[in-house]
């Protein structure tokens, strides 16, 4: 029994499903990662030519598994890991900067204490009215 999908990259056989992957779209590292993510549900065998076409055979560990669903799940994982790889490459510089700053944290100059900050204009001083001034104002109002 062989059943194919519209793209003709999934072949359903008795007991296993064969998926054809274009290595120009999905690099080998992504295929390994997607296959590894499926290992709890299926046995995986990878074959083919890394330059032209990679064939992934997925064989269900349990008889209850739906092979078609497994095949689509594998394709989802391929997209998932492709996006992860692209985002990781984009954020590489940012991640490096964050880690660099985190590691440098203890070596950086400590933040100066409030007492150490010069205040030549007297801006920091909180001006509160004296008791006499308050009583004078009360008399004026009455």
């Amino acid at each position: 029994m062989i059943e194919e999908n519209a793209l003709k990259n999934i072949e359903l056989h008795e007991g296993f499903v064969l998926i054809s992957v274009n290595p120009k779209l999905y690099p080998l590292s992504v295929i390994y990662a997607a296959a590894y993510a499926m290992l709890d549900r299926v046995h995986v065998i990878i074959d083919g030519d890394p330059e032209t076409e990679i064939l992934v055979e997925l064989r269900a560990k349990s008889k209850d598994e739906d092979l078609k669903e497994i095949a689509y799940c594998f394709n989802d994982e391929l997209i998932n890991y492709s996006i992860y790889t692209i985002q990781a490459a984009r954020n590489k510089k940012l991640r490096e900067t964050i880690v660099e700053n985190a590691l440098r944290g203890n070596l950086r100059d400590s933040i100066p204490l409030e007492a150490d900050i010069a205040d030549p204009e007297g801006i920091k001083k909180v001006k509160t009215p004296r008791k006499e001034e308050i009583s004078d104002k009360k008399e004026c109002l009455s």
Partner: protein
Amino acid sequence: MNNVKIEDNKVIIVLNPLLYPIEKIKKAALDFEKVGKINVKQDSSIKVTIAPKVAVGINEIGFQFCDYILSLIQTRL
């Protein structure tokens, strides 16, 4: 695909060296020694023969071996 076959109570696994690095296969073979006698031969493809101590679920051992190599590739790149 006929990568995993059974012959004379032995499981024969044929792997593509471009997809399964030989050093990972050798490491997996060492780790599978407790399962049975293992022989690894390489020419244009890599042929692994496992003669399990217990002749039950021989096919399953072959698939588990392939899964184990994949986990070695993925976790120790």
